């Protein structure tokens, strides 16, 4: 135990005495979080949506056909009531619901004005507002075609309701993304570099010619980074909540548990990288190009995964950050509980276990 604590103490001394590592571990998450206020808008295709058609009229069917025919939308469901819509939203099956009231057709043809209600999942605010504006364009075109036929101006008014994130604060979306990015960076990149540094400096050579087991050396290196990464999670949550005013809807312990699980998976990745690389540069390149880039690009942090080619979508499934970000969005922003994210949790758990076993197997007892 004394040996273990002296390893940990040594590791913290390394961290505290290197100003660059310190900045990377503690300042960078904060800076990233604040910089990422500017999220990138992109075209979104094949948004899954549901229609609750209470009007069941010719004109409501025309509108539904126009939407389903568009490449921007993909009709998933025709629910019978509001509850079903609510459920589909929570399950993440749909991003948008179109509710056409019973008297829509009558109103439209008698008074010239019909009302349609749109509900969008605004946990990703950019996506939600882009998607609703697409619907409004489709409805606009429908109005124009009606006018050509009857020479009477019709108006279809939409009432837009943003679910989960009524103010469309885009911080809601990027906070989970930043968490995924920062944790990946700290745990995988910094940990792998710090292990490889021992190889490069030759200290690993001395440690190997000692009673200490190599697995123990590496595990004891991971613990300080686990603690710091956990500290960063708390820091990010505090800043998001108090400075960016992102509400934390879900259970805070579930969020912390989820983060810890993700930290463990990233740490195992870092250990795996450190066992196959020999220099700090190689470790940095491997974790940078091999982990950071896919995490940024494929995890849905900047570009919605739904919008990517199928092949990339498939690849994105092997990125732990994807599952983490999906789950943390559900808990933090939608306020969902354990049972809604059990799938993501078990995938992460499986990945962590797999990576840990592989990286421990990879350890060499010799040079």
């Amino acid at each position, binding site marked *: 135990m004394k040996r273990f604590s002296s*390893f940990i103490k040594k590791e913290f001394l390394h961290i505290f005495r290197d100003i660059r590592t310190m900045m990377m571990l503690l300042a960078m998450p904060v800076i990233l979080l604040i910089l990422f206020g500017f999220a990138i808008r992109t075209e979104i295709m094949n948004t899954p949506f549901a229609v609750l058609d209470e009007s069941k009229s010719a004109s409501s069917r025309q509108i539904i056909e126009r939407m389903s025919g568009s490449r921007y939308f993909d009709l998933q469901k025709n629910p019978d009531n509001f509850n079903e819509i609510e459920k589909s939203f929570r399950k993440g099956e749909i991003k948008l619901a179109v509710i056409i009231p019973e008297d829509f057709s009558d109103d439209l043809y008698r008074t010239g004005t019909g009302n349609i209600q749109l509900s969008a999942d605004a946990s990703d605010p950019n996506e939600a507002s882009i998607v609703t504006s697409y619907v409004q364009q489709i409805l606009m075109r429908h109005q124009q075609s009606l006018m050509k036929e009857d020479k009477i101006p019709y108006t279809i008014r939409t009432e837009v309701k943003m679910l989960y994130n009524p103010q469309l604060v885009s911080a809601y979306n990027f906070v989970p993304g930043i968490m995924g990015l920062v944790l990946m960076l700290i745990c995988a990149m910094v940990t792998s570099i710090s292990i490889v540094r021992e190889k490069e*400096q030759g200290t690993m050579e001395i440690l*190997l*010619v000692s009673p200490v087991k190599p697995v123990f050396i590496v595990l004891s290196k991971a613990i300080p980074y686990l603690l710091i990464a956990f500290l960063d999670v708390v820091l990010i949550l505090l800043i998001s909540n108090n400075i960016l005013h992102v509400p934390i809807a879900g259970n805070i312990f579930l969020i912390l548990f989820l983060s810890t699980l993700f930290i463990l998976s990233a740490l195992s990745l870092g250990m795996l990288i450190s066992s196959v690389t020999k220099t700090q540069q190689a470790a940095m390149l491997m974790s940078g190009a091999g982990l950071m880039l896919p995490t940024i690009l494929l995890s849905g942090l900047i570009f919605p995964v739904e919008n990517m080619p199928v092949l990339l979508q498939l690849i994105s499934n092997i990125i732990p950050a994807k599952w983490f970000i999906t789950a943390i969005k559900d808990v933090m922003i939608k306020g969902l509980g354990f049972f809604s994210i059990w799938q993501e949790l078990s995938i992460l758990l499986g990945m962590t276990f797999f990576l840990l076993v592989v990286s421990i197997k990879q350890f060499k007892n010799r040079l």
Partner: protein
Amino acid sequence: MATSISINNISKKYDDTPALNSISFDINQGELFGLIGPDGAGKTSLFRILTTLLLADGGQASVAGLDVVKQYREIRNIVGYMPGKFSLYQDLSVQENLDFFANVFHTSMEENYDLIRDIYVQIEPFKNRRAGKLSGGMKQKLALCCALIHRPQVLFLDEPTTGVDPVSRKEFWEMLKRLKKENITILVSTPYMDEATLCDRIALIQSGKILSIATPDEITGKYPQKLFAVRSENNYQLLKQLRNDPQVSSAYIFGEYLHVTFKNDVPVIEAEEISPTVEDCFIQLMEMS
């Protein structure tokens, strides 16, 4: 005398480049044994095989009666190793390094203080300085302290004096002599031939092959010819002339003199006959092989 380290037909190749070519020799308990050879002779490879860091391609070796492959865990408990490159934590202070390595070996500085005291008192004034900020000689003393902290039975020192000033080198060898009294077997490698005479026995190694193993005196005693030191105003000119002379068997620059041997006993009028150093022997053995 008991055998401490036994090396039997050890071979090692890196890709296709042979580093060690079927090497065999034994080192006795409590011996200060020198492995003398130029860079790239295979010294470090042999050290790494004996400290269980590398697997040999062929042959067996044992340290303190333990097989380097099968019983590598036990070996790691009882040996001290100082790699050729300074391998301590440069960002930790002298004291922090010592405490850390003491903990690594489940011991404390106090426990074996008598062993490291002589060395430690020399670095104690700098105990709060970062290891990276020490001079070369101090670094080596600290590294030796760390390697000794658990009172190893066998000590492996890979080129401990490379890059160290002459005064510190001398001090370092004096420390090794003191350690010998503790009955610790010491295997030390060095490219400096002058250090060879300080060892009990030496092995001359070149291109992965052992040229000769004996005490330094025996090795110099086996020098087959009379050796002369000559000097002139222009040594380079003289060297060229000597090498062209059919009577001269070898001639090379050695400090401010030229060391010369002759094929037949040429009556030399005015040149000093000298006793060969280990380096002379090394050059002679190298040219023979």
